[in-house]
C-alpha cells in the first residue's frame, strides 16, 4: 500500500475548510446531552470540565498535525502501514475503521431516538434509519468534496442557533455557578473525560490531510475549528447550568433540546421541534464524514473499491440498529463507544506521534517514505 495519497488537483481542498470539517464533526448528537453528563460528574463546575476537554482536544490535534507533517501527504492508514508494517498496521487500521463505523452508529441511533421521543413516537427506527443511511451514502458517493460541502452548509445553516441561547439566559439564576471551583480536580477531570463522546471529531484530520492544498496551514485552521467548538460547548454548558436547577438538570436527558422549549414565537409555539429537525442538519455531515473515512479504509487497505466498502458498512449499520431497542442499551453502547473514543481520538494520536517521531529519528535511512529522507 502506498503511504502517501496523491489526490488529483480537482479533489483538493482549501485549508480554511478544515474549520468547518473539524467543527461540524465535533458538534453533533453528543452536545444535546453534554450539560447533564458533565453536571453528574463535576456539578456546577461542569463548564470548566468542558473547557478543559476542549483544550485537551486542541493538544491532541496539535500532535496529530505535527505527526502528519512528518509525511508528505499521508493519512492514518498510510502511517499505520509505514510504522507498523503490513500486518500489524492493517490490523490497527481495521480497528480504527471499526471505531469510525461505531461512531457513525452511535450518532445515528441517538438521533433517531431523539426524533422518536420528541416528534414522532410511532416512527419505526428503520424508516428514519434508511433515510439517514441513504443520505449519507449518497453524499459519500459524491466524494470528499461533497462531504466537506455538507460540513460547510451545516455550520453555516446552524450558526443562528447560538443566538437562541439568549432566551433561556433571561430565565436563569446566575447564583448556580457559585462557588466556582467547588468540585475537586478529580471530579472536574472526570467530567472532562466523560465529555469526550461529544468532543470526538478532530481525529478526522488524520484522514482528510492528504486532500488539503496548503498543508502548512493545517495546524492553524484545524485549531480554530476546535477552539470554536470548545467555545460553543462551554457556552451551552454554562447556560444550561444557570438555567436549570441542579436536580432537574440531573433528570433531563437532553438538556439542550429542553433549553429550546422556553423559546416561543407568536406563530410557532413549540420551538424545540424546529431545533430537533435542524439537528439533522448538524448530524448529517458527522455521518457523512465518518462514513467517508471508514469506507476510505477499504480502498486503502484492501485496494478494493471504496464503493463496496461503503455499502458493506451502510448495510451493517442499518442491520445493527434493529438490535438496539431500549434506552438503557443505547446508553450502554454510547458509553462504551464514548470511552473508546476518548482513547482512539485523544490518546492514541499522541502516542502514535511519539512512535512516528522515534521511528523517523532512529530509522531515518531505512524509511524512504518519510519527508526529507
Amino acid at each position, binding site marked *: 500500500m502506498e503511504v502517501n495519497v496523491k489526490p488529483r488537483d480537482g479533489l483538493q481542498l482549501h485549508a480554511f475548510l478544515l474549520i468547518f470539517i473539524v467543527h461540524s464533526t465535533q458538534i453533533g448528537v453528543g452536545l444535546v446531552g453534554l450539560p447533564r453528563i458533565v453536571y453528574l460528574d463535576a*456539578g456546577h463546575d461542569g463548564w470548566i470540565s468542558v473547557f478543559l476537554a476542549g483544550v485537551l482536544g486542541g493538544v491532541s490535534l496539535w500532535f496529530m498535525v505535527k505527526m502528519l507533517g512528518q509525511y508528505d501527504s499521508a493519512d492514518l492508514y498510510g502511517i499505520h502501514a509505514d510504522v507498523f508494517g503490513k500486518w500489524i498496521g492493517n490490523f490497527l487500521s481495521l480497528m480504527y475503521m471499526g471505531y469510525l463505523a461505531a461512531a457513525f452508529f452511535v450518532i445515528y441511533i441517538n438521533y433517531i431516538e431523539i426524533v422518536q*421521543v*420528541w*416528534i*414522532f413516537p*410511532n*416512527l419505526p427506527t428503520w*424508516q*428514519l434509519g*434508511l*433515510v439517514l443511511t*441513504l*443520505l449519507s451514502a*449518497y453524499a459519500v*458517493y459524491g466524494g470528499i468534496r461533497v462531504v466537506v460541502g455538507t460540513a460547510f452548509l451545516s455550520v453555516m445553516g446552524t450558526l443562528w442557533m447560538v443566538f437562541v441561547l439568549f432566551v433561556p439566559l433571561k*430565565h436563569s*439564576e446566575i*447564583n*448556580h455557578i*457559585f*462557588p466556582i471551583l*467547588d468540585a475537586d480536580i478529580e471530579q472536574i477531570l472526570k467530567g472532562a473525560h466523560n465529555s469526550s463522546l461529544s468532543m470526538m471529531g478532530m481525529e478526522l484530520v488524520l484522514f482528510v490531510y492528504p486532500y488539503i492544498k496548503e498543508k502548512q496551514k493545517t495546524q492553524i485552521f484545524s485549531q480554530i475549528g476546535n477552539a470554536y467548538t470548545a467555545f460553543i460547548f462551554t457556552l451551552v454548558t454554562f447556560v444550561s447550568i444557570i*438555567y*436549570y*436547577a*441542579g*436536580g*432537574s*438538570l440531573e*433528570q433531563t436527558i437532553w438538556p439542550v433540546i*429542553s433549553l429550546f*422549549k*422556553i423559546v*416561543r414565537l407568536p406563530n410557532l*409555539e*413549540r420551538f*424545540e421541534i424546529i431545533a430537533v429537525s435542524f439537528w439533522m442538519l448538524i448530524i448529517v455531515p458527522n455521518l457523512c464524514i465518518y462514513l467517508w473515512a471508514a469506507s476510505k479504509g477499504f480502498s486503502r487497505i484492501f485496494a478494493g473499491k471504496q464503493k463496496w466498502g461503503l455499502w458493506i458498512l451502510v448495510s451493517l449499520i442499518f442491520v445493527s440498529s434493529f438490535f438496539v431497542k431500549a434506552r438503557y442499551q443505547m446508553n450502554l453502547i454510547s458509553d462504551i463507544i464514548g470511552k473508546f473514543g476518548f482513547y482512539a481520538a485523544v490518546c492514541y494520536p499522541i502516542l502514535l506521534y511519539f512512535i512516528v517521531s522515534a521511528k523517523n529519528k532512529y530509522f531515518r535511512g531505512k524509511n524512504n517514505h518519510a519527508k526529507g529522507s
Partner: protein
Amino acid sequence: MPKGPKWKTAILMIASTLCLSGCVEARQLEKLGLITAVGYDLDGKNTIKGTVVVHKFDALAKNVTKVISVEAHTSKSLRQKQNLRSDQRLVSGQLRCVVYSKALAKKGIIQLVDTLNRDPNIGNMVYLMISEHDASSIINVGKKNVKLNLGTYLYNLIRQNVESEQMLSPTLQDFNHSYHDNGKDPVLPLLKLENGDVSVAGTALFKDDRLVGILPTNKLFFLKILAEKYKSGTEEFGFNREDFKSILKGNEGRSFRTVYNKLFLEIDNIRSHTKIKLVDKKNVRFRVEIKFASRLLETTEPLELGSAKNVKFIERQIEKKMEKEIHDLLIFFQKKGVDPVGIGNEYIAHIRGKKITPKEWRSIYKNAKFEVRVKNTIVKTGVID
C-alpha cells in the same frame, strides 16, 4: 448531465427519501380535540378527578368548547377515559393551563407535574395554578359561556398579570426550576370564583410540592421585589397622620376632608434592584439591600412636595415602612418554612466544599436572621407638585 446509472441511483434515493418522510402519522385538525385547560381535584381519598376543556375546530358546532370530567389515578388514564367520551381524538399539544385544587395541592402535586414534564407534547410555558375550591368549578365557568374558551381565558388572565408584573410567572418551567432548586421553593397563583368570574386571590406558597400557605395579594409586591428584578407594581402605604404633620399642606381657604383614619400614599415602582448578601456565615445572617426608584401616584391628603426636604422626608418614611414590611414577610416565610425568595441559593453559593441538601438548608433556614435596608428614591411626583 451525469451518466445514466448514477443519475438513476440519485433519483431512486431522492424518491425513497421523500416517500419515507411521508410515512409518519397524519393528524387532521378537524378530527382532533385540543385540550386547552385541565383541572385536577382530589376525589375522595384515593382518586383524582380530571376535568378538561376541549377546543374544537368545527364550523357548525355551536359550542366551541366541551368540558369532560372523569376520575382515575393517573393523569394519563384520565386522558384515556376522557377520550372515550369524546367524538374527537384528544391531544394535549395546545395545553395552556393546569389547575390544581387547593386540597390536592396540600397533598402534593409533583406526580401530576412530572407527567407534564415527561410528555414531549407539552410545552414548557404552560401555566400552573391553584384553585381555592374545586378545580372543576373553575373549569366549568366556560360551560355557561358559549363564546368563551376557558383555556385561552385563563391563560390570558395569568399572562396579562404576569406581563404587567402583578404576579410571579407561574409557568411549568418556573415551577420546575424552583422545585428542583435546593435553595428555593415554588409559588403558584391562587384562583377564586367571584360572582361567576375567575379572579386571582393570592399566591400559594409551596414547600417542595405541597401547598403550605397563602400569601395575600397585597404582600405580593414585596415578594416580587425580593425575588426578581421588578419594574412595575404599585403599593399603598398607610401612615399615622401625626408623622406627616410637618409637610401637610395648610388649608388655605379650601378644605380637604380627611376621609380615612390614616394617611395613605400610593407609590409605583419604576425599577428595583435587590441584593441579598450573606454577611455572617456562622450565624446565618443575611442583609437584604434594596435600591428602589419610585413614583408618587396618589396621596389621600395634600402634601407639600415642592421642597427637596419634604420629598426626602417621605422617602425616609416609606423606607422605614418597607423595611418593616419586608422583614415581616421574610419572618412569615421563615415561620412557614418556605423560601420562595431563593435565599437558600444565596447561601449555597457561598458555602464551599460541601453539598447542602434541601433538608439541611431547611434546618439552617429556621435560624437565619435578616436585616433589611431599603434605599428609596422618589424620582417623580407626577405632573403637579
